[in-house]
């Protein structure tokens, strides 16, 4: 592998606190040097003036749909979309078909990723067999196969005793248990946040208390068992408060929030666009504010996309029937940059939530730009304006609430293991 000299960008590395204009030199797949006195005339150079140079983004929450639902997405297309979004690492959820509840499926996913995916893929295995919440998975074997965390995401383990056992058992393998925290008996048929919007639309509401109740339960169980609880896609100010309080108390709980829950309110749903249907649903302005505050003060460790592709025709149905979920990779950076522009979070804080923090939560490589670390780098233009068109993106699906909208900020180059895998002018570069 050759050498790449990324020149003149604003290097933001939360792992060291570095935030200054500097050069980055990549060599043999790793970071060789970061600083001012680099000279590598024989290296390929990338002029990064005006751009941010950061560790590659790491997404703790992605649905790559392979195996089983390749018509929505597969590891190859999802990986390319990730690269175009500045991501160099994706943790993929277990709700595939078959479910990733067996080391053979984990093997398959990681094998496909090695063959046909420009970015690193990490497998999150199911916590219970078939995501049914009845029998726990073989966590040791799954970890051996490469699982980095356990989750029944998409489903909730409603049985509190089962949830307790899963958390307890996870201590054996020292891996986090990620929860989709929603009390389904309160959600019932709810499809939009319960409140003024659900009342106006006449659609069944999903109340915020459905989330807070289960976050509270799972925090209690994590405290009781001493396990590492990771709360997926936090959407309510109430859940943020519960997590903040638990962390102060010393409970081992981490959490993530999606770009859509940080930037869109339930009012986006007023036109009945099924591309605004998510689980958990878009919430009130107060909840969006609470999530942004939680991200800024570190209660929420990571921004995770919950990238959830669905085919066009699957979304062209009644709002209540449409599958929840939206694309996330290619819109993540420009959408969350809104928080920086509004001074809700510092550039360093934002980049930490996309890089070093998620790496730490799942104990993954990457998330830093220091000599010897992986050559996973994102080069980001914070000012670049563009119109997002899902049809021109890399995902196989198009379900985005931001379709057709102007975006400010765009990844211009992504490096994985020192190799350029995406450039805004050239697209994804991968054999």
């Amino acid at each position: 592998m050759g050498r790449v000299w990324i020149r003149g960008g604003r290097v933001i590395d939360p792992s060291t606190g570095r935030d200054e204009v500097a050069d980055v030199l990549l060599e043999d797949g790793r970071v060789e040097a970061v600083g001012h006195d680099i000279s590598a005339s024989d290296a390929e150079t990338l002029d990064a003036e005006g751009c941010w140079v950061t560790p590659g983004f790491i997404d703790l929450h992605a649905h790559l749909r392979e195996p089983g639902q390749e018509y929505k997405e597969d590891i190859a297309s999802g990986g390319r979309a990730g690269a175009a979004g500045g991501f160099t690492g994706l943790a993929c959820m277990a709700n595939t078909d078959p479910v990733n509840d067996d080391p053979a499926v984990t093997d398959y996913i990681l094998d496909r990723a090695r063959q046909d995916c420009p970015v690193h893929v990490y497998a999150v295995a199911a916590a219970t067999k078939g995501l049914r919440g009845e029998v726990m998975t073989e966590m040791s074997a799954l970890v051996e196969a490469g699982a980095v965390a356990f989750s029944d995401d998409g489903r909730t383990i409603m049985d509190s005793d089962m949830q307790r056992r899963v958390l307890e058992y996870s201590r054996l393998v020292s891996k986090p248990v990620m929860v989709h925290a929603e009390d389904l008996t309160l959600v019932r048929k709810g499809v939009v946040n319960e409140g003024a919007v659900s009342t106006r639309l006449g659609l069944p509401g999903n109340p915020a208390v459905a989330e807070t109740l289960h976050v509270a339960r799972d925090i209690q169980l994590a405290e009781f068992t001493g396990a590492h609880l990771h709360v997926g896609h936090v959407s309510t100010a109430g859940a943020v408060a519960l997590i903040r309080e638990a962390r102060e108390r010393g409970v081992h709980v981490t959490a993530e929030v999606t770009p859509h829950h940080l930037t869109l309110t339930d009012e986006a749903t007023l036109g009945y666009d099924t591309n605004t249907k998510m689980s958990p649903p878009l919430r009130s302005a107060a909840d969006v504010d609470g999530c942004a505050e939680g991200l800024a003060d570190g209660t929420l460790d990571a921004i995770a996309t919950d990238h959830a592709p669905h085919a066009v025709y699957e979304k062209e149905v009644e709002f209540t029937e449409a599958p929840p979920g939206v694309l996330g990779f290619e819109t993540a950076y420009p959408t969350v940059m809104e928080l920086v522009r509004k001074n809700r979070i510092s550039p360093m804080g934002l980049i930490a939530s996309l890089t070093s923090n998620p790496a730490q939560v799942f104990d993954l490589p990457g998330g830093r730009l220091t000599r010897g670390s992986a050559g996973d780098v994102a080069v980001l233009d914070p000012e670049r304006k563009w119109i997002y068109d899902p049809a021109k993106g890399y995902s196989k699906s198009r379900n985005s609430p931001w379709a057709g909208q102007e975006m400010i900020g765009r990844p211009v180059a992504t490096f994985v293991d020192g190799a350029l895998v995406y450039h805004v002018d050239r697209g994804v570069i991968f054999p």
Partner: protein
Amino acid sequence: MMENGLLGIQELAREDIETILETAIHMKEVAERDVKKVPTLRGRTIINLFFEPSTRTRTSFEIAGKRLSADVVNFTPSHSSLSKSESILDTAKTLDAMDPDAVVVRHGVAGVPKRIADELDAPVINAGDGAHEHPTQALLDMLTVLEEKDRLDGLTVTIIGDIAHSRVARSNIHGFLKMGAEVRVAAPPTMIPAAVETLGVKPFSSLREALDGADVVMALRIQRERLAGAYFPSVREYAATFGLDRAKLRFAKDDAIVMHPGPVNRGVELAHDLADHRPSVILDQVRNGVALRMAVLYLLAGRRHRRPADEGGNS
């Protein structure tokens, strides 16, 4: 406002409502004639697209269309095939290819008429979607009140019952508020939707207070099968606390009228003798339904909204 049809009262301006009501009053005169049919929509095709069975509303639209000489076609998609394979947008595109002049849509899920309207060139008339809106019902209710009270402005309207699941309630709330009335809703707290004040109404859990000084009292149908046990303890308890009878009606104004979108659960939301006699105006509501729907069809059918290039294309 009514460019791509009549999807809800929410989107209408007060002037739109006035135009529709005024037109409906003229249509009532047609209904009083010997020959109750005018040639206005001759050669026009109206499709009644009812995903959810509703003999009353469908028949009302059918009569309205036929009195205007339109060809009215009832299209009732079979539920099984629809939910399994065909998306609503497929249905919409299929209909568009048939080139109707208006499509009347009833669906159990909120928002479906809007999604169909987005795909269709012809105007879409919402005949009820989930718990969202039922605009023609609210308009005929307003017409009935206007005839009784000679005004809507300044009236106090009390709506009693399952506001949370009622499209009739929502459309009437939007409509009466736009026309300058005060609207109150009364129900057990389990049947009041979240943040209902944001619609501009006052919620009451005391029926007596809600009725105090009311000019119009509207009782909603209780879905006993679906709700009993879950949203209220029993039909008996509901009837005792929120069922309207002559004794409770005394709290309203002396000349208050009683309305109901039908069909009535006698002895539940309305006492038996209230359903049939003054001050109940339930049958006037039904009669006004045809004239009101004639007005809506007259104002909308045949108007195209997605091909502005056609306008004046022949001149």
